C-alpha cells in the first residue's frame, strides 16, 4: 500500500491529525500523572468520561457533554477526597473508579436498542473521527501547550514536589486541581477517537518513556509529546499497512517505545552506578 497515497483519503487525514493532537494532550497529562504518582487517575477519569457519555446517551443528550461533566466531576471529587486525608489518594481514585464503572454498566443496561455506539465510546475509532472531534482535540492540545508555556514554573514546582511548592507559598492545591481538570478534559476530548479504554495507555506510556530519558522537565514534556505523536502516527500507518485495528496498533507502538526507552535509559545506568 502507498503510505503517501493514504493522505488522499479525508478519513486518514482526520485520523492522522486527531492522532497527533491526542498524542500531544494525552502525553502532557501523562507527565503530571507519572510525576505525581497518580497513574491510575487516567483509568479512573477515562471510565468517568465513558460513564458520562453513556449517561448522556440514556437521556438523549450529546455524549461529549455527559463525558465532560462526569470526568470533571470525578476530578473535582478525587482531589479534595485525597487531600482531606480520610483516605489515601489511591483509595480515593479506586472509590471513584468503581462508582463510575457501576454507572457505566447500569447505563449500558438501560440503553435501548443496539449498543454499538455506546461501545464505540469505550473502544473509540480513530478512523471514523469527525471534523468536530479533530477540532476539539486540536483545541485541547493548543490550550494545554499555552497553559504549559504560561504557567511552567508553577507546574514544575507542583508536579515535582507539591509539598515543597506549598511551603514556598505557591497555591499548590489550586494548581493540582487544575491539573486534574485538564486530565479530565483531555480524556473527554479523546473519547470518540481513542476511546475510554485506550486513552489510558496513551496517557501513561509516552510520559513514562520520557521519564526514563531525562532529568529536565522541559525535555520530558517535549519527549513525551513527541513519543505520543509518534505512537499515534506509527500505529495508524501500521494499521493501514497490515490491516490491523488502529487503536490496538497505537497502544502496542506506545508500549514498544516505552520498552526501548526503559532499556536505553541513562537513569538505569545511574542507578546501577549508585548501587
Amino acid at each position, binding site marked *: 500500500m502507498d503510505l503517501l497515497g493514504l493522505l488522499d483519503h479525508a478519513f486518514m487525514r482526520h485520523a492522522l491529525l486527531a492522532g497527533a493532537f491526542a498524542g500531544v494532550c494525552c502525553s502532557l497529562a501523562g507527565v503530571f500523572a507519572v510525576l505525581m504518582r497518580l497513574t491510575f487517575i487516567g483509568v479512573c477519569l477515562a471510565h468517568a468520561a465513558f460513564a458520562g457519555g453513556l449517561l448522556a446517551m440514556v437521556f438523549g443528550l450529546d455524549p461529549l457533554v455527559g463525558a465532560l461533566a462526569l470526568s470533571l466531576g470525578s476530578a473535582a471529587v478525587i482531589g479534595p477526597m485525597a487531600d482531606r486525608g480520610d483516605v489515601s489518594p489511591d483509595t480515593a481514585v479506586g472509590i471513584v473508579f468503581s462508582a463510575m464503572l457501576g454507572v457505566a454498566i447500569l447505563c449500558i443496561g438501560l440503553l435501548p436498542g443496539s449498543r454499538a455506539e455506546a461501545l464505540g465510546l469505550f473502544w473509540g475509532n480513530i478512523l471514523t473521527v469527525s471534523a468536530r472531534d479533530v477540532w476539539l482535540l486540536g483545541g485541547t492540545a493548543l490550550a494545554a501547550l499555552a497553559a504549559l508555556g504560561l504557567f511552567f514554573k508553577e507546574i514544575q514546582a507542583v508536579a515535582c514536589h507539591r509539598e515543597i511548592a506549598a*511551603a514556598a507559598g505557591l497555591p499548590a492545591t489550586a494548581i493540582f486541581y487544575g491539573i486534574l481538570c485538564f486530565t479530565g478534559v483531555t480524556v473527554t476530548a479523546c473519547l470518540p477517537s481513542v476511546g475510554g479504554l485506550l486513552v489510558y495507555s496513551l496517557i501513561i506510556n509516552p510520559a513514562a518513556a520520557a521519564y*526514563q530519558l531525562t532529568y*529536565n522537565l522541559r525535555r520530558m514534556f517535549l519527549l513525551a509529546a513527541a513519543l505520543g505523536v509518534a505512537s499515534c502516527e506509527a500505529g495508524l500507518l501500521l494499521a493501514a499497512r497490515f490491516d490491523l485495528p488502529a487503536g490496538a496498533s497505537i497502544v502496542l507502538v506506545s508500549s514498544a517505545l516505552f520498552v526501548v526507552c526503559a532499556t536505553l535509559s541513562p537513569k538505569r545506568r545511574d542507578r546501577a552506578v549508585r548501587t
Partner: protein
Amino acid sequence: MTPAADSPAVALTDVRVVRQGRAVLDIPRLELARGEFLGVIGPNGSGKSTLLAVVAGRLRLAAGRVAVRGSGRGGRGRVALAAQMTALDPRLPISVLESVMVGAYAELGLLRRPGPEVRARARELLALVGVAHLENRPIGRCSGGEAQRAAIARALLRRPDVLLLDEPTSALDWRARREILECIGEIHARLGLTTLMVTHELNALPVLCGRVLALRDGRPAWLRPAREALDPQRLAATFDVPFTVLAHRDRPVVLF
C-alpha cells in the same frame, strides 16, 4: 514603615486551631523578639508542625491572631518555611538550582518568569549553605544532608525575616546532622533572622537556641531559656519517659 525596634518579630495571641472538632493548637500568648532563635520540642502530635504552619500563614485559625513584623510591605514580616524533608524520587526531573528557585516563584507571581537575578541569588544561597557544586544535580539524587541544605537555600530565597525549620535533621546521619545544625546557626547569625526550629535534637538546643518552647497536646507546657530547658524532670514530664542529663564541657548533654 519600619517596625519599632522593641516590637516582637512574631506575636501569637489566643491562637486556636481546630481539626475535626478537636483543638490541635491552643497558644494563649507567644512572642519572639527580633533575632531570637526559639527551639520547639514536644512529643509527636503535640502541635509543633501546626505551630510552624500557623506562623507561616498556611492554616486557617479558629480564633486568635498572628502578627509577624519585619521588612515587608507595611512593616509585615516575610516568613519562609523549610518543610520537613521527605524522600524524593531519584529520577525527578528537577535540578538542585531549579528546586531552590521555587522559593522565589510565589513572590514573582503568575505569568512572570524567573530572570537572571533570581538564578544568581539562588546560586549565592547555594554557596552560602555549602552546596554550590551541586546546582545541576537532580534534587532526588542528593543525599539527605544536601537536600536539606537545598531546602534551607529555597527558604532563604524568599528573603525572610522569620525562618521556620521543621525537623531539619530528621533522617540524617550523625555527621550530616552536625553539619546542618552548624549551617543553621551560622545563617541565623549572619542574616540576623528570627528563627523557629522544631526539633527532636535536644542536645542542639543550648548551642543554637535562646529559648525553648515545649508543647504537649497542642498547648505550651513550658517556655524556658535554653540552658534551663534540659532539665531531666521537665523533659520527662514532657515526653513521658525518664531522661538523664550530664554536664560535658560546661554543656548539658541529654542521655536517653
